[in-house]
């Protein structure tokens, strides 16, 4: 039994899990011959998971993760002949408001559509049917892009102390969780504000600190994107 718990603690959920939802009408339309997508400043935080469960945010890891995410998304879209514009650090108050609006809508999608249960909205059904409203058009005008890509990743890494606690607890038959990567990405049609694609990522083995695994994370994050 003890060995079983240990094995569970070590290997449980070690693979990446993605959950893609697309809006009913996802026909991608470009307003001109050149295709351009706007990448909103990635909302990314990397932290170390301490022995006692506390999180210590890491600025160095986060900075490199942001760099990897932007570069990998740029490459992934370039291979589909799509040009990427990026907001970088958002300084325009109006763009900041749209970004906050997306945070709110994204959280509502996670709660009402993904978590469901008692939080399920009776009139919404199972379809991805959410919008930022026509105000999103301002981003189209400002950046000359037809779609905007939003990314949000919270990534935690197991510290040495946490490993000891996990192993010790497993020896006693108790499961204690380690670091984990959770995030979501969404694609917004800037003509209408409609969220056309949404992907929830959960991965116990992902790593955004180094180049190759970061590439894998971005591949998972963009899974099923209708571009």
């Amino acid at each position, binding site marked *: 039994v003890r060995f079983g718990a240990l094995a569970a603690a070590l290997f449980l959920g070690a693979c990446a899990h993605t959950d893609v939802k697309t809006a009913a009408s996802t026909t991608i339309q470009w307003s001109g011959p050149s295709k351009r997508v706007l990448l909103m400043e990635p909302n990314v*935080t990397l*932290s170390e998971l*301490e*022995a*006692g*469960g*506390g999180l*210590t*945010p*890491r*600025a*160095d890891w*986060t*900075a490199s993760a942001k760099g990897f995410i932007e570069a990998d998304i740029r490459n992934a879209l370039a291979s589909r002949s799509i040009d990427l514009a990026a907001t970088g*650090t*958002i*300084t*325009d*108050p109006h763009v*900041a*408001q749209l970004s*906050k609006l997306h945070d709110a809508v994204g959280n509502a999608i996670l709660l009402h559509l993904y978590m469901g249960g008692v939080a399920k909205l009776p009139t919404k059904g199972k379809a991805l049917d959410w919008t930022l409203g026509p105000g999103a058009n301002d981003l189209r005008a400002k950046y000359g892009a037809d779609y905007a890509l939003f990314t949000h990743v919270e990534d935690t890494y197991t510290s*040495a*102390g946490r490993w*000891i*606690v996990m192993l*010790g*607890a497993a*020896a*006693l038959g*108790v499961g204690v969780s380690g670091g984990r990567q959770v995030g979501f990405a969404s694609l917004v049609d800037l003509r209408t504000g409609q969220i056309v694609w949404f992907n929830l990522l959960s991965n116990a083995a992902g790593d955004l600190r180094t180049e190759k695994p970061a590439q894998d994370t971005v591949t998972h994050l963009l899974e099923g994107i209708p571009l």
Partner: protein
Amino acid sequence: LKRCLTFAAAVLLAAAQVEASLAENLPATPIPGYRPAAASDEGGLWMLTEKQEHAIAVSPSRITDPQLNAYVKGVICKLSREQCQTLRLYIVDTPQFNAFAMPNGAIVVYSGLLLRLDNEAELAFVLGHEITHYTHKHTLARFERATRMSNVLAFFALVTMGLGVGGLAGVTGNALAANLLAYSRDQEREADATGFDLAVAAGYDPQQAGRTWRFVSDEHKANPRRIDIAAFLSTHPQDTERMASLDARAAQVAPSRTTWFANDADYRDAMHPFLARWLEGEINRGEPEESVVLLSRLVANQPASGVLRYYLGVAYRKRGGAGDLDAARTAYGQAIACADAPSAAWRDQGLLAMRSGDKSEARVDFEKYLSAAPAADDKAMIQYYLAQLSGN
């Protein structure tokens, strides 16, 4: 049992090692332009804080008026001298009484705080307190302490579980949580004491330091819905304690100089353009018992202010207790007698007159309102009332 003890010893050894690796190094006052290493705890804290600061910087609630910002920043600079250029000020339009310092040197002041203070000296004591939170790296110290404690607790839980007395960890956890809150209260005391010294060194009247807490406490006491948190569960010392210790300090240092300054007039002039907007927010906070106490005090200090008298009337009307509508009507009347009366004072007086059946007075008030505010949003509504009042 032997196996258990060996295991416990191993875990304790590991815990001791983690503890040693996180040994507390007393934070040094940051030199101007200081920036922590990205890979440090402090670097991580700054990263989160910068996100927060950036959100406030681009928020539509931020008050960017250059004159008001220059005035408050000027007080920060008088207190912080060489840190002045490092510290960034953000004034936010929100009616709560609050100010806070971020670990990276951003200082946020809510309009609800500025509204409640009477003079520059009171502001200086609050800002001195916040500057101290930054220079003494209080957030970082609390964060590291919390992490260290939860780490030790995790190992302790393992050992006690291994020994079959897992319940001990729960008790210890509560004790550590209480210890962390006590630590936070000690930091507040330190910020009060050091902030006091900064403001006094700049010549601000020490007698003003305790007043703020007395007034805030008076407001809270008037509110039957406010529930006080038990002292040992609070992150801040009780208002009464802060008042008493600041008053005691004031009594000590007051004789050391013959002239102290509070700059009442400068302060009032700086806040005057924002009063109506902030009072609108104060009323909308939905705590009319507190608003009545606050506005009664402000009116007593500035009896010629029609704006203050008008909002005192609104607060009475919102409170709506026995005699409050009469008090509101009196306050509107007194507001109208002041040079800077808002046109809404006529309207609200008219509405109360209509309610008590004084039709002719209501008509006069509404007509005066419409002539003072011909483009009012509620013009159609008032015209409808006028038509009704003339109807019979």
